[in-house]
């Protein structure tokens, strides 16, 4: 197999409870912990395992974002990726533009497989992988929980609403990772040192000459309606009485 491209998005850490700014202008992300999108981390882990098992030539991690995303790319390199590409842009790119960025990079490299997370936990969109597959005119296997390669084909098991669906796809293809695809490895200190020597190429977005948008505008941010704490009951009899009271039994 030729190269595997893995997208790593810098997002607010999984454990941070994000709040809407009082003036409704956005969410407050100042000074909060940032991490690799957890699904992207699973995608990278899978890419590293695939590289070992079917001798892929190289695992390239890519991020589209500000220079701060170098931090997440370095973590990806420490996990075992061979090199990194940062496509630099200060504002957050919409998913379609992001897919076009990936496509531009695919056109420069010989990529057989693109692995992405099934969604980013900030915007919860779940779009970029499918969009990339569309404009690349290649197969997509979203929400993957198992990938088995057979020459230039892959059998992918997908977590769908009614169970597990298996599809067969020809390579090259885009696969998006679900939670149970694997458990990502922990990064060890010597690997972090080694990662500092690996190549991290920075490409200004403008150099790729891609078309942007049309973007969907966010015009207002609100805190969600909060549920109120209800009553506590002491025992099963109390629970049944409370349920009857609400007409649920």
């Amino acid at each position, binding site marked *: 197999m030729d190269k595997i491209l893995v997208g790593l998005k810098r997002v607010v850490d999984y454990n941070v*409870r994000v709040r809407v700014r009082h003036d409704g202008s956005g969410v407050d992300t100042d000074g909060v912990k940032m991490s690799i999108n957890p699904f992207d981390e699973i995608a990278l882990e899978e890419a590293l395992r695939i590289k070992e098992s079917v001798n892929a030539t190289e695992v390239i991690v890519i991020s589209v974002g500000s220079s701060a995303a170098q931090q997440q790319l370095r973590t990806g390199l420490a996990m075992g990726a061979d090199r990194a590409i940062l496509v630099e842009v200060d504002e957050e790119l919409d998913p379609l533009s992001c897919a076009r960025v990936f496509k531009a990079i695919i056109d420069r490299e010989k990529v057989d497989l693109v692995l992405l997370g099934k969604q980013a936990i900030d915007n*919860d969109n779940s779009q970029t992988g499918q969009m990339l597959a569309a404009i690349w005119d*290649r197969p997509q296997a979203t929400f993957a*929980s198992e990938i088995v390669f057979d020459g230039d084909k892959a059998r992918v098991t997908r977590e769908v609403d009614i169970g597990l669906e298996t599809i067969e796809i020809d390579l090259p293809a885009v696969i998006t990772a*679900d939670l149970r695809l694997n458990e990502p490895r922990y990064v060890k200190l010597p690997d972090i040192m080694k990662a500092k020597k690996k190549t991290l190429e920075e490409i200004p977005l403008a150099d790729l000459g891609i078309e942007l*948008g049309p973007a969907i505008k966010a015009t207002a941010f609100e805190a969600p309606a909060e549920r109120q704490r209800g009553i506590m009951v002491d025992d099963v009899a109390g629970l049944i009485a409370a349920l009857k009271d609400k007409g649920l039994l």
Partner: protein
Amino acid sequence: MSKILIIAEHDGSVINPSTAKTIACAAEINGGEIVVAVFASSAASIAAEASQIDSVARVLTIERPENAHALAAVLAPQVAALAAGYSHVFGPSTTFGKDLLPRVAALLGVNQISDIMSVTSSHTFQRSIYAGNAVITVEAPADYVVVATVRTASYREAGSGNSAPIEAADATVEVPDYTRFVELKSGKTDRPDLQTAAKVVSGGRALASAENFDILYKLAEKLGAGVGASRAAVDAGYVPNEMQVGQTGKIIAPDLYMAIGISGAIQHLTGIKDAGTIVAINKDGEAPIFEVADIGLVGDLFKIVPELTDALP
């Protein structure tokens, strides 16, 4: 005037309730004409069901052997071709719609709106981000088709009593054969479907084993409830993936949700925030689930659940 194309979700013979929920969302767009498209190898029974859903003006069937299974790569070029002349293309935010609609949007050269919670106007919608920690209003550009998925937990199924005309639509678009269906493994049970059940009983890591979930199945049977689970319980292998409720699992809105042995991580809570009544049973009185529960009971689930099951008629 808006002309809205809805992509029906079905299993090859029966329409999925997510379709009528998507139609309910589309019906909130003032003066919109709603057309339902059924892509199938044999569409008659599905189209007949779709034609009965209120607000539907027409049902289009696109029958070809390649449409026997809902493969995004196969359906997307057909949807994109059919979308000419429409102002909107909507699908449910289920794994079917989430797989397909972004691919359609990219073929049409537009971005997509995921998980519409409410309609403000024909091009302005609300959706949630950050696992439900924020609600944003989004505005799609005026001169482009609006491609979107609808958060099914935010809508009740549109009513039934219509008899919209059914027509066969042109199906001659070339489709790729680089994606092939192999098999579907479904842990189908007699229990009500998790996504549409009026009552749901859900278990967490505290159940401690697959066998222990039996006490929840028994309770669910008495209540006529569907059964769900937290991510922790699915990761631990106690139950299959299709039972996961939360940000990355199913987002549901039953009248009654019983969270049993679930601590209530924000990622789980985002999957149930539209539930009517939330009951929490947990041995840890400090568990975050009690912050959102309408009725809380602190104690040992292994005693409480069988006692509750026995006490129910």
